[in-house]
């Protein structure tokens, strides 16, 4: 990039991480999640929000099997998710998180460069999402730190640290390898289109 930072732009193929405690191709999970008592009591998801086409939330967005596209320019990194046609903006202009953040589905993200690694810090989540498809819970205290580093021309290492004293007694990590797909484009993905589960009343 003209500003001297690595360019993370492009369409990235990522492992589908349905369960952040498991390991698999291109991803290493934390097998012993340090649940608090609150988390142990909230492992079962009573309301399947994603089936209602509600937003996946930040960590499930990056866990999702469909590609994401990064669009980087000075002071901004835009994350475009194929899933649900949505987006998220990471502010890399040096600002801090606002005080009194209203809780949101995707939180508020700031990014700072540590050498060639972009470190993205996200807080301000609501309590309506889960950290993964498996349903591992979190509270509004969820704090997500991600480290993005281009390892070669077509790969990026990704490390995410989940901190949430309400749900986990200590921070835990998940690491992955992303693959650049220069020939791919994001497709349109409308969850509400043909959502028969909801529209025909099969689920509440």
């Amino acid at each position, binding site marked *: 990039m003209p500003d001297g930072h690595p360019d993370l*732009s492009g369409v990235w193929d990522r492992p589908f991480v349905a369960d952040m405690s498991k390991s698999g191709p291109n991803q290493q999970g934390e097998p012993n999640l340090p649940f608090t008592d609150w988390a142990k009591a909230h492992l079962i998801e009573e309301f399947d929000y994603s089936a*209602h*086409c*509600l*937003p996946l939330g930040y960590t499930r967005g990056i866990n999702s099997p469909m590609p994401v*596209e990064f*669009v*980087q*320019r000075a*002071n*901004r990194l*835009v994350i*475009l*998710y194929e899933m649900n*046609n*949505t*987006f998220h*903006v990471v502010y890399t*202009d040096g*600002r801090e998180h*606002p*005080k*009194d*953040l*209203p809780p*949101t*589905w*995707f939180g508020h993200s700031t990014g700072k460069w540590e050498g060639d690694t972009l470190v993205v810090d996200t807080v301000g989540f609501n309590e309506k999402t889960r950290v993964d498809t498996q349903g591992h819970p979190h509270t509004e205290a969820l704090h997500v730190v991600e480290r993005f580093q281009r390892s070669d021309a077509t790969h990026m290492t990704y490390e995410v640290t989940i901190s949430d004293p309400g749900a986990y007694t200590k921070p835990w990590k998940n690491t992955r390898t992303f693959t650049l797909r220069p020939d791919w484009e*994001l*497709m*349109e993905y*409308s969850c*509400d*289109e043909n959502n028969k589960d*909801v*529209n*025909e*009343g099969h689920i509440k």
Partner: protein
Amino acid sequence: VFLTLATLQAQWLNYPSPSTPRTNDGKPNLKAKAPRVAGRPDLSGVWQVQPVPGEVERMLGKLDADVVLGCDPKTFSKYFFSILADFAPDQAPIRPEALAIMRNRPKDDVPPNERCLPEGVPRAELIAFPFKIVQTPQQLVLMYEVDNTRRQIYTDGRKLPADPNPAWLGYSVGRWEGDTLVVDTTGFNDQVRIDAASHPHSEQLRIQERFHRLDFGHMELQITIDDPKMYTKPVTFQVTQLLMPDSDILELFCNENEKDRGHMKK
């Protein structure tokens, strides 16, 4: 939802950006020169259509009953309601086939956006909700606050696909003509509505948007709707987009607190 919006705005939507030009009293200088990037005007920023006082009510009558906090249809562009707003009914360039489609719609027709399906082009740029542009040399990303929907306009020289997948937002490519970004979009599906009057379109629909940033705070947006199957000639109109300095778009997901669905026909 709208109540929440008003509350949020009070909380954190005032980030004085160092890149905002300012007048001597510290206020954003909306008449400063348009910024440029990589030799082109930089369209990046948070934009919202400029209301034209009275134009919507002249067309639709009193709308005070439809106003809710944070969403006032009187501040939408009149073209949100009808792409044919500039024509007397008997002079509108619409084909009889299109009029028949409108006549034959069921009385309880529910436009898809009321089921949280995409608002689409050009409505999402004519409604009184902002959208954010982030421009790079390869593409423009449009992020509509309405249902937080992404749209990509490729400016890397690629052509429109010959056989696009029908999509709610179509497929968009842009090219520069001087300081104007000319965006052509095709590949619309047959479900999306191009205006609130539900004027019909065919899969031949082609929409051209011409973005011209006049200065820091103002951008002309000229829109042409071309669909020879439904209209006897292309329909062109123009609106002004106003920059919202030091502000941002908010999270807005249609499905959150969506209560209508149970009341609507399946």
